[in-house]
């Protein structure tokens, strides 16, 4: 096909830049690394500046944690899914909550119509948490919970359940995402304004540092921001700026910076730009170590580690010829592993249609296992180090992130830029340009704007997972029963404790644990919190 050949030739010349727009040369040579010092730029794995990895020997000592995102319907349905994953050898659980739970709305709130249990599990009360973990001991599990604005409440329920199970709080492992900044920029699931949100974030971290030493109280995310339109270096810049705010807020409470630094982790991932992904991970490790050491004065290595939960990027998956996504997911997984992530969640090939089916989940898990056990990729630390290209691009990506952080600084910092809507407008414009580039064929997406085939999607759709229609009714029924079963006087007293902590700037976590134990619902607690902290509406991104 001469037409195709012609286009292949022009493609190579036309798009010699990364997806972030970093210009690339056709060939990199020793000259590109003139003056480049491996000692200061790389060190060795497990030593400052950690470019090569945060642990000595990396996967030679311990593989990354293989995770898959799960959680839908009611607590019982998610419990079944958890057990399924567990029986299939998964070493960590990852939990999705429905939108009402993420926004602090009870399942019988009028705004939740059609949303209860749809995109994740519905949690209203401690009783739902009990059902979620039935048969799964909390000291034998590490759950990563995708919860942000209402993270203090969900964590309070998790701790209350552990207390009930007789599990020592110090044995609890897992992660709450607890990162509201990406909510203003990407997911829209915020409740409070940035400043009071930062206070709650700091409450969770301070509490965990003191009470739950093995629990990760925050995982700051970039992928959502990327998906919503930002270039990846900008998304990472916003992520690091959020991390700086959080660390400063916790340190201001008298917590040692080394203790905070040791508990913070990050979520960043691949897009379809393979080498940029690897280099972003390497550059991020080096940059974060420098920030912690030089800006915050951390002196313990564990406080300088960029702990990375790697992810894929569903934005790069297509509804068209969806099995092609398996190739994309595999490459995203490989890039994350070459980049040295500590855990990995990959998307599923059918995500453009629905919540992934069990078969699709297993395929994504097996992609990770094939990478881990069949390819030999994990055997050697940071195998791309020293490449003229990879080291040049790593340096370039680091410069891009720093420059982007400085641009936000010129706008008055992260919170001011969010409240003004400056970042959101930037992102909307970028999203539009990226989409236009695909529609106008400047960026090739196989099956979408090139190599298109006619396909019958209705067949595919009929196989897809459907949420049971009765889930919402049953959840509302249980919520009503849970409300009935409470001792009103004890509940009132517990709610007063929460409000007192909020108004007095005391840490709100222990009062929240008391309140959920007394049967307070997520909606009641969120309402009590907005009563003191106010609610918020971000400016338009247009």
């Amino acid at each position, binding site marked *: 096909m001469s037409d195709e050949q012609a286009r292949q030739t022009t493609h190579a010349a036309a798009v010699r830049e990364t997806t972030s727009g970093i210009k690339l040369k056709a060939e990199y040579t020793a000259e590109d690394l003139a003056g480049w010092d491996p000692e200061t730029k790389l060190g060795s794995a497990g030593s400052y500046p950690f470019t090569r990895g945060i642990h000595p020997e990396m996967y030679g000592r311990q593989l990354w944690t293989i995770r898959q995102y799960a959680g839908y319907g009611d607590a019982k349905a998610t419990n079944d899914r958890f057990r399924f994953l567990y029986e299939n050898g998964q070493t960590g659980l990852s939990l999705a909550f429905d939108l009402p739970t993420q926004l602090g709305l009870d399942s019988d709130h009028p705004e939740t119509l059609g949303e209860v249990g749809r995109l994740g599990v519905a949690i209203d009360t401690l009783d739902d948490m009990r059902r979620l973990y039935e048969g799964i001991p909390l000291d034998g599990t590490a759950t990563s919970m995708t919860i942000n604005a209402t993270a203090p409440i969900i964590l309070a329920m998790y701790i209350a359940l552990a207390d009930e199970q007789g599990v020592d709080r110090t044995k609890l492992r897992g992660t709450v995402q607890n990162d509201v900044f990406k909510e203003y920029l*990407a997911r829209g699931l915020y409740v409070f304004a940035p400043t009071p949100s930062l206070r709650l974030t700091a409450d969770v971290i301070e509490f965990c540092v003191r009470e739950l030493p093995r629990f990760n109280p925050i995982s700051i995310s970039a992928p959502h921001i990327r998906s919503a339109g930002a270039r990846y270096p900008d998304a990472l810049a916003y992520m690091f700026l959020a991390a700086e705010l959080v660390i400063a807020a916790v340190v201001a409470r008298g917590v040692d910076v080394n203790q905070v630094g040791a508990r913070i982790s990050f979520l960043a991932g691949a897009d379809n730009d393979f080498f940029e992904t690897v280099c972003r991970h390497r550059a991020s490790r080096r940059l974060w170590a420098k920030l912690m050491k030089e800006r915050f004065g951390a002196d313990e290595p564990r406080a300088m580690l960029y702990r990375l939960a790697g992810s894929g990027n569903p934005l790069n998956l297509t509804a068209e010829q969806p099995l092609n996504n398996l190739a994309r997911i595999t490459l995203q997984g490989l890039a994350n592993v070459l980049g040295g992530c500590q855990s990995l969640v990959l998307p599923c090939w059918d995500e453009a249609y629905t919540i992934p089916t069990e078969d699709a989940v297993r395929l994504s898990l097996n992609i990770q296992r094939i990478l881990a056990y069949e390819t030999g990729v994990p055997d050697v630390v940071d195998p791309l180090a020293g490449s003229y290209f990879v080291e040049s691009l790593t340096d370039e990506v680091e410069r891009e992130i720093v420059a982007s952080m400085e641009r936000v600084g010129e706008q008055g910092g992260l919170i001011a830029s969010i409240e003004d809507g400056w970042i959101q407008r930037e992102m909307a414009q970028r999203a539009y340009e990226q989409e236009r580039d695909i529609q106008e064929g400047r960026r090739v997406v196989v099956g979408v704007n090139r190599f298109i085939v006619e396909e019958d999607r209705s067949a595919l759709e009929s196989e897809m997972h459907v949420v049971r229609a009765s889930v919402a009714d049953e959840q509302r029924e249980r919520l009503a029963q849970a409300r009935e079963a409470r001792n009103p006087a004890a509940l009132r007293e517990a709610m007063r404790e929460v409000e007192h902590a909020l108004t007095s700037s005391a840490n709100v976590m222990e009062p929240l644990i008391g309140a959920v134990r007394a049967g307070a619902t997520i909606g009641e607690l969120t309402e009590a919190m907005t009563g003191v902290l106010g609610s918020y509406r971000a400016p338009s991104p247009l």
Partner: protein
Amino acid sequence: MTRLIRVLVGKVGLDGHDRGAKTVALALRNAGFEVVYVGLRQTPEMIVSAALQEDVDAIGISLLSGAHNEVMERICELLREAGAADTLVILGGNIPERDHARLATAGVDAIFPTSSSFTDIAEWLREHALGATSGKETEVPHRRGR
């Protein structure tokens, strides 16, 4: 005839993934439409009330949450109740084909699934807004890649 076509763009429900809504809004604005962007967490009531107040020719709703049937039925019903059934209603997002017939019955005039092209959306609106009659069959404009 020289009047700009006015389009309201927004998302209904709790889902905050607004990449589709905002890119389509910007594309329409760049293509010479007047766009009223109402953004996230709208209810059907808020959408219809804003549409009437702004006197728009078309309402564009982006939905990825799966709640499209209930939401669109309610919006179309409210429009009929307000005597504004001639307002064009278009829908974008993750809309399975099995739901297209139901949405058509509800009164959705066109469905633009993910990866529909900006040009197709703009052309469709130009063809159908400003005096053209709605209420005929729901269209799913031919997919030409993006």
